[in-house]
């Protein structure tokens, strides 16, 4: 489906990340928004990219440091006496 993309689309994709992060100057944002109005493919890519970033930022339970891992770490660093209380 890549042949549905115009040159403008490729330019937009090149600055998509910075656009999402709000790091582009106003005039460039304006250009991008004008292109988005008339280009559904780019709108989809923008929406789904934003959503992708949102989703990966949702924390997953298994990423917390398990208590036994923390304990072994503190022992290895000879911080045994600081194990409790946490924080």
């Amino acid at each position, binding site marked *: 489906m890549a042949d549905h993309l115009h040159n403008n689309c490729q330019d937009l*994709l090149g600055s*998509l990340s910075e656009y999402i992060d709000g790091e582009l100057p106003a005039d460039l944002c304006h250009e991008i928004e004008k292109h988005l109005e008339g280009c559904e*493919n780019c709108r989809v890519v923008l929406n789904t990219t934003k*959503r992708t970033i949102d989703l990966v930022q949702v924390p997953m339970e298994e990423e917390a440091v398990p208590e036994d891992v923390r304990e072994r*770490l503190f022992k290895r660093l000879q*911080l045994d006496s*600081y194990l409790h209380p946490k924080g």
Partner: protein
Amino acid sequence: MSETQTQSFSIDALRAGDRAEFARLVDAYSAPIYRLGLKMLGNPQDAEDVLQNTFLNALTHFADFEGRSSISTWLYRIASNEALMLLRRKKNTVNLDDFQPEDAEETPLPEVFVDWSTMPEDELLSGESKKALDTAVKKLPEALRMVFLLRDIEGISIRDTAEILNLTETNVKTRLLRARMFLREHLSTYYSERLTREEKKDG
């Protein structure tokens, strides 16, 4: 982001061997460093190694810390080096491309144009979806994954990410864009298949 970024630590105390201050630092940065290890290496044992080695390394190098970067940047630099070293050690065949992606190459163009972004949150984050997300992150080439984890998971700025990984800001931006496009493509394929499945079920 997390509360970690807002805490401050006394470099002087750390250099002087203040145990309480060190314990506070360890507790503040354990979670993000463990997470980085987990996502780079893919298993809890290796993540624990990265975690322990990072703080052991930090402990012996507080004297070298010049304070030109923040303590957070400095710790992440040690952690990312530990993670990459462990990865290299574990690989029988070292694929150089993983560490040096050709930054000059063009970013692949998107191919799936299904707008799944309005699917309800509970469907996007169902157990099965989470697994798909995790798999997609694991499939990212390592050099892209590291940039993506620091920037999008840990919320570190482009500038600091560049400093941590000893890359230019332009390199970081390129790798970040590629990582995001790569994940978007994988998730788009996954969710569009799900949408089709559901339509069949309904119709």
